[in-house]
């Protein structure tokens, strides 16, 4: 693996060379068409970007030459400098110089800008007369121009999406071949399929790897955004960003962009208190917000913490009752994590006043839906007066997910591991009947237990399971978590854990809520993927 610095350097060189090519093209055109405002503006923009990039990565001499050229073109633009032959020569020399310096970055010796050239640039910028006699001849560093193509290519994400889909299909077929070869017990076939297995696996990871970007590409946009929101809210914010180099699938990052922005706005406008209130609470006058990323196996964990006023549990409990989610009695029994999970319900908002940046009726439910759609999870922790933390658990890659396979009646079902908590064989006699539902005390937690068999076969409004409806002394229960709530699912049989490629269901069956998609198993069998979010939602409303 290349070091991060090396990678940044390569990206910079590739981009800079592209700018250099474009500059060459435009300046040649400009020579023929000195009046073309658009060309001038484009050259100006390219030089400006090049300067900014070079400065950011620490190539000050490149930034310096770009700056001088930018100034010169700026003057041509404002007609303070005429595009005369002498000036053109200096500008061409300058751009050539840039090219030399850019290609020199990776070379053994760093290329220093020619002092004569720098002086010439200064002369054309500073002397507004046609005092061309001062210009000295610039000695060219190169003897012949080397033509070379960039080592990096830009590629449309669409093409990578297509590639990933193809790999997904390939993996399904591969698993099928592997299982057939086991059945046939043919040595050559077994060898070939083992090899096929390894190659496709490597192919899959290569494609997944090609889609990874740094979380930093999103995080680094936040300092500016935070500043703007803070100014609008008349607050002072100290933003701490870490883990920018954690990698994640580009599309996943794209999907959560709006969510993260929404959470950030909330944190600043609703979380962080005004300076005078903070002082009274013995906090620093500036609010502290930290945005961090870390890896945990196949999961990327993003965390957004503020040290603001926190969420008032009692206020949330009152809102739950007011908005008709639960009765006042029922809210008393809710655990703290459960109370907070109501923040993600549609139409649930605590914002009392609409401010410029947040509280426009777009609630946390939108954030949650975005995260659900990629098979992620969101969690909120908050302590009144201390602060709030939102934690986003995101898959590193969209394509392949770990899943737990189980059987209910004749069908196989997959439950993404992202949502599974644990698996238990629970004695039937220890289950308790509460109304039409069963509950169990598992490791000190009271968990609602749902029979998938009954859920599948009856209308949800008529769902009712008593202990006598269950067969066997012990029940296989998969405990799933969604939105800080746990639910136990009784299955007929636990099969195994497996990586699956989830395909979307096609019309018209794509609207059935309890399915997140479908996958093909190695045996060629179709396996439905359960949507834990939808199933949990069914049973929350019942409580």
């Amino acid at each position, binding site marked *: 693996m290349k070091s991060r610095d090396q990678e940044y350097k390569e990206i910079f060189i590739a981009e800079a060379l592209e700018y250099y090519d474009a500059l060459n093209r435009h300046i040649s055109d400009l020579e023929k068409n000195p009046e073309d405002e658009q060309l001038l503006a484009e050259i100006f923009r390219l030089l400006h970007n090049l300067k900014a990039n070079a400065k950011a990565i620490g190539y000050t001499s490149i930034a310096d030459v770009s700056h001088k050229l930018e100034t010169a073109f700026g003057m041509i633009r404002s007609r303070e400098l005429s595009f005369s032959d002498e000036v053109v020569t200096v500008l061409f020399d300058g751009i050539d110089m840039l090219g030399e310096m850019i290609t020199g970055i990776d070379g053994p010796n760093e290329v220093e800008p020619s002092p004569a050239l720098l002086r010439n640039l200064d002369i054309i910028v500073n002397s507004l007369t046609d005092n061309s006699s001062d210009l000295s001849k610039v000695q060219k560093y190169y003897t012949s121009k080397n033509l070379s193509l960039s080592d990096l290519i830009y590629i449309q994400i669409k093409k990578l999406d297509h590639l990933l889909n193809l790999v997904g299909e390939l993996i399904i077929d591969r698993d099928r071949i592997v299982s057939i070869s086991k059945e046939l017990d043919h040595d050559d076939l077994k060898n070939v399929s083992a090899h096929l297995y390894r190659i496709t696996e490597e192919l899959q990871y290569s494609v997944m790897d090609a889609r990874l970007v740094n979380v930093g590409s999103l995080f680094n946009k936040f300092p500016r955004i935070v500043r703007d929101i803070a100014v609008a809210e008349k607050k002072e914010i100290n933003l701490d960003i870490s883990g920018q180099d954690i990698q994640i699938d580009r599309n996943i990052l794209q999907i959560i962009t709006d969510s993260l922005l929404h959470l950030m706005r909330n944190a600043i406008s609703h979380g962080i208190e005004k300076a005078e209130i903070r002082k009274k609470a013995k906090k620093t006058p500036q609010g502290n917000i930290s945005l961090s990323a870390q890896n945990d196996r196949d999961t990327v964990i993003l965390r957004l913490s503020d040290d603001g006023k926190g969420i008032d549990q009692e206020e949330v409990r009152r809102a739950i009752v007011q908005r008709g989610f639960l009765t006042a009695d029922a809210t008393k029994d809710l655990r703290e994590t459960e109370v907070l999970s109501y923040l993600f319900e549609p139409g649930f908002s605590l914002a009392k006043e609409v401010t410029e940046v947040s509280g426009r009726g777009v609630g946390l439910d939108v954030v949650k839906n975005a995260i659900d759609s990629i098979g992620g999870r969101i969690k909120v922790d908050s302590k009144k007066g201390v602060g709030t933390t939102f934690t986003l658990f995101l898959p590193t890659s969209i394509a392949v997910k770990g899943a737990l396979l189980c059987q209910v009646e004749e069908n196989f079902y997959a439950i993404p591991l992202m949502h599974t908590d644990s698996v238990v064989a629970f004695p039937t006699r220890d289950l308790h009947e509460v109304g039409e539902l069963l509950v169990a005390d598992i490791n000190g937690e009271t968990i609602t237990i749902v029979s998938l068999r009954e859920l599948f076969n009856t209308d949800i409004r008529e769902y009712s399971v008593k202990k006598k409806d269950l067969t066997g002394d012990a029940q296989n229960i998969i405990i799933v978590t969604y939105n800080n709530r746990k639910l136990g699912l009784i299955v007929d049989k636990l099969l195994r854990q497996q990586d699956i490629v989830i395909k979307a269901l*096609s*019309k*018209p*069956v794509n*609207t059935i*809520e309890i399915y997140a998609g479908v996958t093909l198993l190695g045996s060629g069998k*179709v*396996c*439905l993927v359960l949507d834990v979010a939808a199933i949990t939602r069914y049973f929350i409303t019942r409580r």
Partner: protein
Amino acid sequence: METQNARDKKEAAVEERVHLIVFKLGTEEYGVRIDQVKEVTITPEITRMPKTPSFIKGVANIRGDIIAIMDLEERFRIERAFKEPERHTYTLVMEAKDYTMGFIVREVPQSLTLPVSSIDKTPSFIQDININENFIEGIGKLDDRLIIVLDMYKILTSDEVLQLKS
């Protein structure tokens, strides 16, 4: 309606025979235009899909595509001719604009060409029965056979199918 008009125009220009895939539902013969049929295959293993109406038999893997399979006899509440289970059934794979769906038939479908003139536009009173919403395009006659020509596109796009919420 636009597509319907376009189709009618095209036929007027060629005069004309229409190529149908004919199959039995209950005791009657039904037909669909061959251009609406993607393929006919022996019904693969169907995975039952809980929480769907009973006329959706489930989903099946047809050449890597996972599509929903519908039973037209149940959909139209047509009584089945033979009660005993067949050795295997056939699936007509039909294509709508943005999705594909399979329809189970119990006997091997046949291919048949009819002159367009032998298809009567549906008498209006037939439209009231179970096969409603103008799914019937016309009644075709060939010798003493009577073939009910279905407009599969309308079945595929009917609201009932598209709003399958349980």
